[in-house]
């Protein structure tokens, strides 16, 4: 029997991060049968504009494809910080994400969100779990998200690998946007997304968690990718997947390289000289 938890307001992520540091995660092999929901959410337009500016989306009355993730994310954290959740929240790495935009969502629509965990499974470097998010408007599911988080622990070399498609060699044009991501990139995105995970905020807060410098939020570089592809992506019927490969250490300069096919785009976010692949993004419709 699924335990339904209904939240009246968004959980405070800073508090979750502060207390998560103390929690180890249970050693259980099963996911708690919990579904966390929040109803009647109205988009804070000031915050939406700030988010759109940071991620370079146009402010046009339609929610960016990645925006509902912001609404679902605190609920994900709430699920993952629960006592019986088998993985520790601190140190969890966002390795993959899938978004399905069924139809455009207007900025004035009232959203109902629910989140649950599913498919706890081995990963080569530990264990991973999917956090499913569903956004509905008056009973109609308009957006779904699957966020896959890895918690490093005992290695499972035999675990199946989720390999992203290859973008192939650099085209003859060689172009594609170049982004100079400053040291404060993580703080700027934290301010508009509410995700103050210390690994993104500052080198001093990232180091205790094993990173030599702050790293960019995966959902930030992913959002920048989608905003850069812009009107080439449809507003409805879009399935977008991202594989986060190597973290983007801040500051750094990255380059986006894309190929376009009928009903599909494939992009690689790489180091400026192509030396490291940070993320692969595939959009299909």
């Amino acid at each position: 029997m699924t335990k339904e938890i209904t939240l009246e307001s968004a959980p405070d992520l800073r508090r979750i991060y502060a207390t998560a540091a103390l929690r180890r995660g249970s050693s259980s092999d099963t996911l708690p049968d919990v579904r966390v929901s929040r109803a009647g959410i109205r988009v804070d337009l000031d915050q939406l504009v700030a988010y759109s500016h940071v991620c370079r989306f146009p402010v046009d009355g339609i929610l960016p494809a990645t925006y509902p993730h912001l609404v679902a994310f605190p609920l994900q954290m709430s699920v993952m910080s629960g006592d019986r959740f088998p993985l520790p929240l601190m140190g969890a790495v966002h390795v993959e994400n899938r978004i399905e935009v069924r139809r455009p969502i207007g900025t004035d629509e009232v959203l109902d969100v629910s989140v649950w965990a599913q498919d706890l499974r081995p990963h080569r470097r530990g264990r991973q779990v999917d956090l499913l998010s569903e956004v509905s408007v008056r009973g109609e599911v308009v957006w779904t998200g699957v966020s896959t988080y890895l918690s490093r622990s005992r290695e499972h070399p035999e675990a199946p690998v989720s390999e992203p498609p290859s973008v192939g060699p650099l085209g003859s044009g060689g172009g594609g946007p170049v982004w100079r991501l400053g040291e404060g990139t993580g703080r700027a995105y934290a301010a508009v997304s509410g995700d103050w995970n210390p690994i993104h905020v500052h080198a001093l807060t990232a180091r205790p968690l094993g990173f030599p410098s702050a790293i960019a939020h995966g959902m930030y570089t992913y959002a920048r990718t989608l905003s850069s592809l812009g009107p080439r992506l449809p507003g409805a019927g879009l399935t977008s997947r991202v594989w986060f490969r190597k973290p983007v250490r801040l500051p750094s300069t990255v380059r986006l390289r894309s190929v376009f096919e009928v009903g599909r785009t494939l992009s690689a976010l790489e180091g400026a000289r192509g030396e490291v692949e940070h993320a692969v993004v595939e959009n299909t419709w």
Partner: protein
Amino acid sequence: MAPHSTPRTSRRVAVLGGNRIPFARSNGKYAKASNQDMLTATVDGLVARYGLAGERLGEVVAGAVLKHSRDFNLTRETVLGTRLDPRTPAYDIQQACGTGLEAAILVANKIAVGQVDAGIAGGVDSASDAPIAVSEGLRQTLLAANRARSAVDRAKALAGLRPGHLLPAIPENVEPRTGLSMGEHMALTAAQWGITREAQDELAAASHQKLAAAYDRGFFDDLVTPYLGVSRDTNLRPDSSVEKLSTLKPVFGKGDGATMTAGNSTPLTDGASAVLLASEDWAAEHRLTPLAWFVDAETAAVDYVHGEEGLLMAPAYAVPRLLARNGLSLQDFDFYEIHEAFAATVLTTLKAWEDPDFCKARLGLDGPLGSIDRSKLNVNGSSLAAGHPFAATGGRIVASLAKQLNEAGGGRGLISICAAGGQGVVAILEA
């Protein structure tokens, strides 16, 4: 006045003449002159040359690419500072490096349909007297403080100030959507098209030699008015040669394949230009002889953001459309003015028109547009030698080509100008 019951037929548009100040390398002779200073001097020089003092023109259209917020009405403010009748209307436009030619197109179109009889098109830019903005953090903080209704709220807003906010934001010469400078974009395209260093240096040296020769034979005597002690473009190196240019180190592109140097790329430049356009009747009434006719124009844009096309390739698309509309081939011209943003831009454009695959796949043509007679290209030098104050280049080229066509006793000329944002503006003049 009674409205016309039937549409007017198109009128011929005459290029009567032009004026510019010598172009100066940035942070040089014009370092402290503002856009309005330079444009006023340029328009006033044109007014003096063609006896337009006290004349109420149909309109003056001009623009600048690098613009201070105080210059919101730059062209109208300029007109009020000239000897033109102050009742002459004016407006600003901005289409990056296409600004000057686009201004001429707008004036020419109004003349052609009979909305105005005469007008001035111009452009100005200062890379020296550039606007500097406060940082985004400071700007947002100050705006929040300005919105605050009470002293306490204002103090709260100002408490958000951080030391880092005090660093100014200096305008960058980069494409906002790619983060690459124009030179970096061009270097990618040049490498893709296999444009050699030698070919670029040859084009650059020729540009200097031809501009110097044109000055020496007095070609610019009625096109250029000295300004602030400058009588020739300060970037001009009459003794430029391939040997000298070959010693320069590449500044754009990567590794051994880098070919673009400060010598075969245009420098940042300050300057202004203006051209006088009119109907045939207006010209006759004012006893002015048309140098050439402004026949037609076309603009194009390419999708360069993800590298599918080069940033500066749009003129390659605009020209075939213009040719088709006018029933011309690429070879039906006596003079070609292809703006030398970079030597590689000119060479890539010409190579693309010679390339059967590009012309078929990208331009949708049956075959290549073909080669041009290089002796007809930029015969009086171009931007590599003169410099390139962004919005002023169109006016420089229109006036020079019109005079060249007139001197030659007739003929047809093609103008091609690439612009930021993947745009291109092209036009045909005839005499």
